[in-house]
């Protein structure tokens, strides 16, 4: 365990930034926090939850994949993948750290997605224990310990000091390069963890139960008559999927850049009516079916494929952002029967 004083955090970040470019949550003029590139004078935001999740770092909203040049009947494929530099994402909360695991289980299983892998290998994650959760948070329901998040390095912030603990070789290598961190014992961090746990237990959604979801529940939940009421007002706007750190659906498209064709991928949403449209027909005709897909995927299909791990991390973003205030918690409460009353 290492520590620095709260007032020295900027000089520590400056040193880390020399080793690898640092991104951290910074308050915008609208009062909302977003990840920005570190620069002298940029302050680490007090708001722990960022507007956009951190998935952009590994799975950007749009990403060019390759280029084509065509001449007559001939085609040339140009591989535009380039060497990436290491970068540091500082201040990631436990929920968002878990979301990387969830994405890994999609992009890093065979056949491995080399675009994602390259970013992931170069990313160093510095997580932060989350002492000021929002009322919309429910990471605990998915077994995430906000007081002790994963990542290459974990950071705890108390009134006076910032504590740093490396969890991986990558993390240790990085911290070794920083001067001005002093060794310390774990007492203050243990105290902080206990404090955070108490706060978490008091959150309004602390008792949300996952008991009625998970592998093997497909048929029972798929045919529930509750989906009709739940999905009735859904606009199909896709906001919930775009703000979600674990939503990974994408589209592959092309544009003609004048001197050639660029093929890129971009986030897509199962909430959109054309997502599954094909020449042979449309398997999900109504918004009910599309709405059901999103939540069934997070709560049943994903765990069924992935050792029971849920596809939601309880970050609360979809609760805060849905224009009709529909969200996964309402779905869980409605479908979860008596366990969630």
């Amino acid at each position, binding site marked *: 365990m290492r520590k620095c004083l709260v007032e020295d955090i900027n000089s520590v970040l400056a040193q880390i930034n020399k080793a690898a470019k640092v991104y951290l949550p910074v308050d915008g003029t609208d009062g909302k926090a977003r990840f920005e590139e570190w620069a002298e004078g940029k302050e680490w935001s007090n708001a722990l939850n960022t507007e956009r999740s951190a998935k952009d770092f590994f799975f950007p909203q749009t990403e060019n994949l*390759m280029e084509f040049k065509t001449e007559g009947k001939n085609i040339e*494929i140009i591989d535009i993948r380039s060497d990436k530099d290491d970068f540091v994402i500082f201040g990631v909360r436990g929920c968002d750290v878990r979301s990387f695991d969830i994405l890994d289980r999609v992009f890093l299983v065979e056949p491995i997605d080399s675009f994602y*892998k390259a970013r992931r290998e170069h990313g160093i994650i510095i997580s932060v224990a989350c002492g000021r959760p929002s009322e919309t948070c429910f990471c605990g329901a998915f077994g995430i310990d906000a007081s002790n998040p994963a990542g290459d390095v974990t950071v705890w912030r108390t009134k006076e000091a910032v504590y740093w603990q490396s969890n991986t070789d990558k993390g240790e290598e990085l911290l070794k390069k920083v001067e001005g961190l002093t060794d310390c014992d774990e007492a203050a961090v243990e105290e902080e963890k206990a404090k955070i746990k108490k706060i978490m237990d008091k959150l309004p959604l602390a008792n949300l139960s996952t008991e009625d979801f998970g592998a093997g529940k497909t048929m029972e939940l798929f045919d529930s008559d509750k989906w009709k009421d739940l999905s009735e007002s859904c606009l199909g706007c896709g906001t919930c999927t775009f703000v979600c750190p674990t939503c990974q659906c994408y589209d592959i498209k092309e544009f003609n850049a004048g001197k050639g064709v660029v093929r890129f991928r971009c986030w897509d949403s199962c909430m959109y009516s054309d997502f599954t449209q094909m020449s042979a027909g449309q398997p999900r005709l109504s918004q009910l079916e599309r709405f059901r897909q999103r939540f069934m995927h997070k709560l049943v299909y994903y765990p069924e494929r992935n050792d029971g791990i849920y596809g939601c991390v309880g970050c609360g973003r979809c609760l805060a952002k849905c224009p009709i205030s529909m969200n996964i918690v309402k779905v869980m409460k409605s479908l979860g029967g008596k366990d969630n009353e």
Partner: protein
Amino acid sequence: MSNVSETLIPKIGVITDVRIDTPDIKTFRVVTPDGVKPFDHRPGQCAMLSVPGVGEAMFSITSSPTNTEFMEFSIKKCGCVTDWLHQAEVGQQITIRGPYGTPFPVDDEFAGKNLLFIAGGVGLAPLRSVINYCRHYSDRYGKIDIVYGSRSKNDLLDYKEIVDEWTKDANVDVHLTIDNPQEGWDGHVGFVPNYVKELGFDTDKTVILCGPPIMIKFTLDGLCDLGFEKSQIYTTLEMRMKCGVGKCGRCNVGSKYICKDGPVFRFDELDELPDEY
């Protein structure tokens, strides 16, 4: 498994032959610029073909793995990519990536069995690969029956190959049918599901069924009436696909990705998936 660095990044393919099968289906022969088969595959697997600037789409590899010289795709004209391909000429380059999907279990569950193939329309495309594979290794299988139907004689895919090769194969019985009577057609007339019931097959067969959803539904009912179990009947599904490797989420049904865990399924396996395909 596929080479890590090649996910989503295709190879160049060259169209070396275009055969007109029906008014809206053409069969394209594809090799690499060096003149070899783009990659090895198993019966029932698919490939993503694309025309840069137009788009990418998934197609069954209709040629058999035993064909070591080239790959073939039977493509129905119905949208951007397929329209473009239909006007392409020999020598045109396209891109190709694959093979994708889980193949038919030709070397295990099919081994030693009598096989009954039932296809409607372009549904013959994925089955042709299996049929020719099983014909090639005929000592590994029992008798092969093929029931194939289309709207009219002009809509039958691979007609020349069926007449010149399949019907002459001692191990194979071919039963063709068209929806309505037509001049110059002295074969069976009527829909596939009814024809299957009329033919009344023994239930000792393993069935491979592919065609339009409505034809699949009625044929499946008919087979069950004849006493077949769902666990004896295989099909291949079609969903919208983009990545082909189980990542873009588009072809997800229940906990399966049709591009990766399918497109080949047994009907008893499908009963465990939500009815969304």
